Each structure stands twice: as structure tokens, then as C-alpha cells.
């Protein structure tokens, strides 16, 4: 390898190292802080933990209501993602496969809502939810999450379903399957990479979602994790140690979901879904 190439390689490695430190650094720091008490952190913010204070997680879970927040987040995000995947999948399938009146118009209507950031719609949503008695309820939040994530989900899935050769559907029809069966037995399995992508995307986004949650949920018992973490700031003194522990509780499930589904995603792609 020539000197120039060697230099390029080294420069690239240095760049990568910086970037990795930049991204992973804070995560690592939070992890270490989550295992140290606030006093230890005040003493030396960046040191590695001497003793591993695992009891902090327990404290957060029991004393600071993290069990409640965690449960709420799981219920809300799980329900929203399941509904999104099913409805988004069916909608994407129909848009991609069938010709029907107003198809273009409907697609445009759904897709055009992506341009609205939550800040614009939040007031109107608040009013609507109050009117329907869904304000300050988990169901209300689930519906809002489904509504604002649906356009991107439909968009992603529709473009994938459109690439599945139509011969496959014809073959399934000849083999004796109804349109419903074809959706569940052919479309969904073949679209696994795209479905995994939307599941990961939706889970991460909704798990961390703060704005809608903070406006539409008031009861302590219905709070989600992002709201719970925020409580450690400002309400009492800034309990940095506890914030870190709370954050870890929030981060770990997402990492697990990501690892699990991204493997499925890669598996799905290498299975040669499209000839």
C-alpha cells in the first residue's frame, strides 16, 4: 500500500474515532453516571464508577414511580406500533396493488400531512381530544401517535409493496387464495425488511416522544417515561445521578428492540425477497 493510501486510511480512522466518541461518548457517560451516586458525580463528573450502585435502579423503579412510567410507555408504544404496522401495512398494500377511485387523491392527502410539525397541530389536537373526552387518556395518546406516524409508515411500506412483482400475487390467486390471505401469507412475509424498518422507526420515535405526551397527559399515573425523566429536572433539585439511572431504564429497551429487529431486517434482505 502506498504512503498516500496509508495516510488516507489513517485520516479516515481518526475521523471515525472522533465521530464514534462524539456519538457514543454521551451514552457511555450516562451509563457510568447511572451507577454512581449524585455526590460521587459532583465530586468527579467523568470518573468511572468505583462501586456499582445498582440499587439506584431499584430506587428509581419503586420510589420515583418509574415502574408506572415504564408500564405506560410500553402499553402506549406497543399498541401504537402494532396498530401502525397493521393499518400501515394494509394501506400500503392497497395503494401499491389496487386501482380505485380517488387513489391518488387519498395518497396525497395522507402524505401531505407529513409537512406539519407537531407544534402546529398540537393546539387543534388538544381541542379535539377534549371534545371527544380523550384528553389525559392513554387511548387518546395512542390514537394521536398512530395518526401522526401513519403517513411515513404508509409511504415506506407502499414503496416497498410496489416493488414486489405482481406475478407473485397472480400466482397466489391462481393457487386459490383470497385477497386477505394473500396479504397475510404473501405480502407481509415478503415485506419483512420494510416492516422491520417501520417497527424500529416507530418504536424509537414514539418511545422518545415528548411534546404530545407532555401536553396531552396530566395524570401522574398515566405519564410516559420521557415525562418521568423530565420530572427529575426542575421539580426537585437536579438529581443528576437519578436522572442518569432513569435514562438507562428508558434506553435499554430501545436498544434491545433495535438489535433484535435490525437483525431481522438484514436477514430479510439477504433472503432475496425480490428476484
Amino acid at each position: 500500500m502506498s504512503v498516500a493510501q496509508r495516510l488516507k486510511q489513517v485520516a479516515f480512522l481518526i475521523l471515525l474515532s472522533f465521530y464514534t466518541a462524539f456519538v457514543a461518548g454521551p451514552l457511555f457517560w450516562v451509563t457510568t453516571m447511572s451507577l454512581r451516586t449524585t455526590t460521587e458525580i459532583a465530586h468527579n463528573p467523568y470518573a468511572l464508577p468505583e462501586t456499582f450502585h445498582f440499587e439506584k435502579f431499584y430506587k428509581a423503579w419503586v420510589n420515583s414511580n418509574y415502574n408506572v412510567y415504564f408500564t405506560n410507555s410500553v402499553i402506549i408504544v406497543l399498541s401504537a406500533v402494532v396498530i401502525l404496522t397493521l393499518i400501515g401495512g394494509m394501506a400500503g398494500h392497497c395503494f401499491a396493488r389496487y386501482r380505485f377511485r380517488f387513489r391518488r387523491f387519498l395518497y396525497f392527502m395522507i402524505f401531505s400531512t407529513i409537512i406539519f410539525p407537531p407544534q402546529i397541530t398540537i393546539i387543534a389536537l388538544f381541542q379535539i381530544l377534549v371534545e371527544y373526552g380523550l384528553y389525559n387518556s392513554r387511548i387518546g395518546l395512542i390514537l394521536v401517535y398512530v395518526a401522526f406516524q401513519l403517513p411515513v409508515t404508509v409511504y415506506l411500506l407502499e414503496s416497498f409493496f410496489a416493488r414486489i412483482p405482481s406475478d407473485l400475487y397472480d400466482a397466489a390467486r391462481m393457487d386459490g387464495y383470497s385477497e386477505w390471505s394473500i396479504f397475510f401469507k404473501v405480502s407481509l412475509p415478503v415485506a419483512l425488511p420494510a416492516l422491520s424498518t417501520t417497527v424500529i422507526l416507530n418504536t424509537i420515535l414514539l418511545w422518545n416522544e415528548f411534546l404530545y405526551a407532555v401536553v396531552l397527559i396530566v395524570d401522574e399515573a398515566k405519564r410516559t417515561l420521557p415525562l418521568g425523566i423530565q420530572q427529575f429536572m426542575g421539580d426537585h433539585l437536579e438529581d443528576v445521578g437519578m436522572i442518569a439511572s432513569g435514562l438507562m431504564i428508558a434506553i435499554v429497551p430501545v436498544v434491545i428492540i433495535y438489535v433484535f429487529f435490525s437483525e431481522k431486517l438484514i436477514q430479510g434482505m439477504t433472503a432475496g425477497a425480490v428476484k
Partner: protein
Amino acid sequence: MAEVTLEGLTKIYSGSHEAAAKDVSFRVEDGDFMVLLGPSGCGKSTILRMIAGLESITSGILRIDGKAMNHVPAKDRDIAMVFQSYALYPHMKVRDNLAFGLKRRGFAREEIKRKVNQVAEILGLTPFLNRKPHALSGGQRQRVALGRAIVRDPKVFLFDEPLSNLDAALRVSTRNELVSLHHRLGATMIYVTHDQVEAMTMGTRICIINLGRVVQIGPPMEVYRKPINTFVASFLGSPPMNLLKTRLEKAREGQRFLQLGTKSISLPERWFPSTMEIPREVIFGIRPEDIFLPGSAPSYAIPTEVEMEVTAVETLGAETVLILKPDDLEQKVTARVGRDVRTHRGERIKLIFDLSSAQLFNPDTTEVIVER
């Protein structure tokens, strides 16, 4: 097995003025191998898909075994189809691909397994049963597609250009396999292709389609020897039939002759009773293999000698193709002669036209002028 009848089938896609298929009528007898042949975009796939139930029928009646099938959904027609792209389910193993159609129809697990193994045996797929489609070669995938159709034991088999994606050698061997399969199963098969070699070698009958309409139906040799118009004449046969512009004239004593450039060809008697007015333009059709070197013409030939200038010589190994120019005629004539011909560009040679198989076509209607 079954008989398929099409009565005036027409397909007009919504938003389109032109019909993709116009008034198509033909009958496929039980056990027939009917080939729908035509150029790309002629509507043959549309017709096949209407038979399959994958396209709705705008007008006309489709009957299978006498029963009208227009509004019967594809899954209830008891038809199996082999697609050009094979359309194998990528997320399922070969075994499950083959079994997919049977599972739906309420067969017992053991029965399905038995049928799948049997068909895999016939097609040589047993070693691949646990593989997924992406791990198979093109030829193997094709056989799985075929197996999927066979295992259902349907009334009718439909094929939509199944050999197009195979390489040349594989195409020839698979062609033969399909013909053997047809003999073995005795099934009614309808096969769509744009390849005239496939049509000639595989079909018991060929149906030529152009611009959505049926042009001619008949056994391969009949359609080859007696084309109904210039389209059929030039579509079948490689190199295609020579279609030359000539003038039909009358000489004394009622004799007729063709003016081919400066050469006058006296017509065989079979064309004498024609009621056409003379003189007029006609298209003279003669196949390249009906033009011989002097001395090579067969005994049944009605020979006429024509002298032409050689403009190109294509030595193909087993035979030679000569491209010639008759005097005073713009068009070129193609002749297929034996491999030991010795000639070169610019040489004037005499060739024998065998008029026993020649055809005359009306230049306005392009239809053949039938001899009485």
C-alpha cells in the same frame, strides 16, 4: 382435463379506447396443446389472463367444459398457470412453494406430502425440496414453477412465455421436456409465446394473433404452408418468406404470368381460374427454402429459372443463405441453399424457384389469393 371455448372475447382496459383483445374466438379441445403466437404487445397475454381469471372480460363468453366462467374467480376455475418470471414465493422453501396451492384446497397433510414428493420426483427436484428459491438456478426455478402447476392436477394448464428467461441451450431441453410432459399427462395446455420455433415444435395447433385479433388457427404445418395473409407468411419461418411486388399480366390464350422485374414467370395452372382483373399488382410469396440451385430442386417442384445478382453470402455452417437482387426490382430475395455452394458478391447466378409452394397475396388486403 377439459375443453376451453372462447366466444367473441373482448378486453378494453378502462381509460383506453383501443381494445387489447378484439372478438377472440377459438376452441381448445381436450388434450390439445394450443399455442398463442404473436409479436410483443399483440394481446396474447391478455387473452391468457382472461382465461385464467386474472383479467376481467369486457364482452364475450369464456367456457370451460361448456360452463360459462366469466364471473367465476380465478381460484375456482381449476386452472394452473406457469409465469414467465416463475413467481415463486421467496420466503418459502421449494416444498412449501409446491404445497401452497394444495393447502388451500383442504387436502390432508399426508396427501399433500405424497403429491409434492411425487411431482418433485418427476421433475428431478427432490434434492432441492428444502431450499429457498434464491438458492436455485434459473432452470431449477422454472421446474419448481412447473411443479407447482402439476401438483394441483388442474383441468387446464396455462403457460405465459415460460422459456423466455432461460438461456438458449436450456430453452431447447426444457421445450422437449414440456412436450414429453404434455404426452405423459394428456392435459389441455394453452401456451403463449412470441417465438415461432417454440410454436412450431410444441403446438398441436397454433393460433396467430396480431393487434388483438385472431389471424389464423391451424396445425403448425398448415399455418406454415398456407398462410392466410402476409403477416402470417412473414411471421413464421426463418429467414422469413420473400414477399415480392410483382405484376400479374395476361398473355394470349388466357395464360397468366408474373412480371418479376424484367423476368416473366408463367404461373402454374392452379391460379388460372382466379376472378381478379388483370393486369394488376400482386405480392408474390416464396419461402427461402423453396429456392434451389440448379440441379437441387426436388421432383415435385414446379420449376422456374431466375437469374439474379448475388449481393451477400452468409455461410452458416449447415447451410448458406444467399441474398440476391433480381434485375429491375428494388427488393432483395433470400434463398437458403446447401453448404457447399461456391459463389461470391457480384456474381450472377441462376436459381430455380419452386412454384408448387408459392403464394400470391392481394397487396391491398394483404390476404392470400386462394387458388380454386
